[in-house]
């Protein structure tokens, strides 16, 4: 309870606010609330998801103009107008997202700049929207017969909406879909390999951010009771982003802090700057611009993390509840051919990285792929797992051709992998990192996550992650930050993550690198046990003692091609292999 104390105090003050605050401050708080709703969307989009939009003000405008137009010109109920506004916003966001989210990260913000400008000019030039003068006479909002006439009455609606959005966003981030969202920033390739549809996840958060903005616009229109284009221009869109960044773009409460701070500061600067400069104008932008640059240079995390450090609220040690185990895949019988690579060739421009590669892996065997540095082993791995497809040749998994499938689709079919250069989310807990691996074993979506209706499934996913972590010997580190583990253990974490997906074929890229002797033995023991359960394992490894003691068969590569294949002891004696490893300059 103690850690909730600051929140409780905040909520009580917020509830009592309108009872004793003067009108001016109630109005200010109303605006802070409205801006926070938009900034919250940007926290999800920019701070968490690593995407960004300068065009949120235009989405606010869509919400405001939809209700402004429909309620005045057609006498529709504001509630129906809200639905229409949300529909239009969703449509625009989906089109824009579809167009830009597949391109590199900066096309979305550039697209939103153009779209922000276009819509602003459109609002100002369409006759039926009242041109630059706008629309007046927007009706009062009625709530179960209660008319929200004044700012004091509206206050509660705004803040209830905002706080429920905050709660929903928090819930969402603490869920299966939330982990996928948090993986977007810096872990997209890994997430795809774990079965996350990153394109859809990106579109989803862009959509959520747009819908939040639309709701804010709808509220704004009924609070002001008139709309004109000014508050929906590009500069206001930039200000929203500014609020999120200054407040702390990676934290839901950062949105409120940022919106509050900027709104108050703007009010103050607009009062005093014209007096200093002796002329009127939007001079506060000079300060906002400089302040934003300084925040990005000096405190990229924004104000919220700094505030949190002032009030030491430590999260209690969490536990993972026991839950029913997830259903498992039917394992192919030992000896079944899982993977077959035929005549695979991979070319990067003029460079041939793999050529003429043939190999197969059966259920219940460990196949090792070895060769000197730069021989093309990791490239082969990326081809097999669909991260970077082959140029030509054929790859079959469980009899099905997979060389044209994406890494996500291949993961779904039961292939798990680890990466040569560890790919995990360093600030997320070990447990959550591993739970990403189990992404495909859950199905509950964004909506049930926001309402926390998926707790049963979530418990099963986390219990599975915990079980795999205990299995690989990381049971003591469930709640540590993944980035704080030594590199060797991070590699082991990746194995647990791959196992959470319940694969029948495991691709391990240098799993033993960085491990100490005893840890290596434990790892070898684990892999033997997995083999005993019928798992097929394809292994790239440099530690020859480890490989030779574990592998059933070995393929040796050099210059992108297979130079030898056979039992470990055969390969060890092959003069071609000796030459490849030790160099032939005599």
């Amino acid at each position: 309870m103690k850690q909730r104390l600051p929140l409780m105090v905040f909520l009580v003050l917020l509830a009592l606010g309108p009872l004793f605050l003067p009108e001016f401050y109630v109005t200010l708080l109303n605006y802070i609330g409205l801006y926070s709703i938009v900034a919250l969307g940007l926290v999800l989009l920019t701070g968490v998801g690593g995407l960004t939009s300068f065009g949120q003000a235009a989405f606010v405008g869509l919400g405001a103009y939809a209700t402004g137009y429909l309620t005045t010109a057609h006498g529709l109920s504001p509630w129906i107008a809200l639905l229409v506004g949300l529909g239009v916003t969703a449509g625009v966001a989906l089109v824009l997202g579809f167009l830009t989210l597949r391109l590199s990260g900066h096309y979305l913000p550039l697209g939103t700049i153009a779209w922000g400008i276009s819509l602003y000019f459109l609002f100002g030039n369409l006759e039926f929207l009242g041109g630059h003068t706008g629309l007046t006479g927007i009706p009062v909002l009625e709530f179960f017969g209660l008319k929200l006439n004044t700012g004091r009455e509206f206050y509660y609606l705004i803040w209830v909406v905002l706080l429920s959005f905050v709660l929903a966003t928090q819930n969402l981030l603490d869920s299966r879909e939330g982990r996928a969202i948090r993986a977007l920033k810096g872990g997209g390739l890994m997430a795809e390999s774990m079965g996350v549809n990153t394109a859809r996840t990106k579109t989803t958060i862009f959509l959520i951010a747009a819908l939040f903005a639309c709701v804010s616009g709808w509220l704004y229109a009924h609070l002001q009771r008139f709309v004109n284009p000014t508050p929906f221009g590009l500069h206001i869109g930039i200000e929203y982003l500014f609020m999120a960044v200054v407040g702390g773009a990676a934290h839901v409460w950062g949105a409120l802090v940022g919106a509050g701070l900027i709104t108050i500061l703007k009010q103050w600067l607009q009062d005093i700057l014209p007096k200093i400069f002796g002329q009127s104008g939007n001079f506060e932008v000079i300060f906002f611009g400089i302040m934003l640059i300084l925040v990005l240079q000096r405190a990229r995390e924004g104000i919220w993390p700094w505030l949190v450090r002032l009030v030491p609220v430590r999260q209690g040690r969490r536990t993972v509840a026991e839950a029913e185990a997830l259903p498992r895949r039917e394992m192919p019988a030992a000896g079944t051919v899982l993977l077959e690579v035929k005549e695979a060739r991979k070319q990067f421009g003029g460079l041939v990285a793999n050529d003429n590669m043939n190999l197969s892996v059966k259920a219940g065997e460990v196949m090792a792929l070895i060769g000197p540095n730069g021989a093309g082993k990791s490239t082969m791995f990326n081809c097999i797992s669909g991260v970077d497809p082959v140029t030509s040749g054929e790859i079959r998994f469980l009899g099905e051709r997979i060389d044209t499938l994406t890494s996500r689709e291949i993961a779904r079919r039961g292939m798990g992998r680890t990466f040569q250069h560890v790919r995990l989310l360093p600030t997320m807990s070990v447990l959550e990192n591993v739970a990403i691996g189990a992404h495909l074993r859950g199905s509950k979506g964004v909506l049930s996550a926001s309402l926390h209706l998926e707790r049963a499934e979530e418990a099963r996913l986390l219990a599975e992650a915990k079980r795999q972590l205990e299995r690989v010997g990381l049971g003591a580190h469930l709640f540590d930050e993944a980035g704080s583990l030594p590199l060797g253990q991070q590699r082991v974490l990746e194995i647990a993550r791959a196992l959470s997906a319940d694969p029948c074929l495991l691709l391990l890229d240098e799993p033993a690198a960085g491990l100490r002797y005893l840890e290596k033995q434990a790892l070898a023991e684990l892999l033997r046990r997995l083999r005993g359960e019928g798992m097929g394992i394809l292994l790239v490894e440099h530690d020859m003692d480890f490989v030779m003691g574990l592998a059933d068969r070995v393929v040796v590569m050099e210059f992108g091609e297979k130079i030898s294949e056979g039992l470990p002891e055969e390969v060890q004696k092959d003069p071609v292999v000796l030459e490849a490893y030790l160099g032939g300059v005599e």
Partner: protein
Amino acid sequence: MMTTPILDIRDLCVSYGKVEALHHVNLKVEAGKIVTVIGPNGAGKTTMLGAIMGLLPSKGEIQFQDEVQRDIEVEHLVAMGMTLVPEKRELFGEMSVEDNLLLGAFQRYRHGDRDEGKTMAQVFGTFPRLKERRAQLAGTLSGGERQMLAVGRALMAKPKLLMLDEPSLGLAPLIVREIFHIIADLKKTGVAILLVEQNARAALQIADYGYVLETGSVALEGESRALADDPRVVETYLGLGGKKE
């Protein structure tokens, strides 16, 4: 090893985030000598070169030509005569071979040294193949030619210390032999060479002195002849089965 070293590293440590990748490494390169650093994959060889060159933040002391480097800047080191041929070559793929070479002399040109034409003729003398390909884009060269261009480009700076990161990586044995002959020949021009290699036999053959790096620390060091015969090298480096890189 009595003369003053051109490069003297004391107590060098490098960390990636919370993980330390290089622990308290001490290493010396004498002027005009070839020193090699060998060791298994992931031992921290490339990391060490990155730290010396100022590409990675590090702790410890790096002394180059009697000057202790504080707050090292790559550009400054290049101007002082240190160059690195990185593992990935890092050529300018969409520019011609000639332009790539020319840019190798950038720092000298900036400081008023305008004999890049003469230096380029010398480089073409060392690598006749590059002369044939002078107008070709670097991105269209074969693996061996790329390595030659990378070394040639580094030589355009007229370095006092040339650092090579795995020059044999991904090259066919014949080309490796050619490259190693050239490296051995370079020594005659007086340049000191720090050679990081996985190809232990070849490296120890042309080097004067060697270090064995294992999991971020120097495990062994000594005259390269002695090192090549040292059973501990075979054990720690080449593996018990006699075939570990």
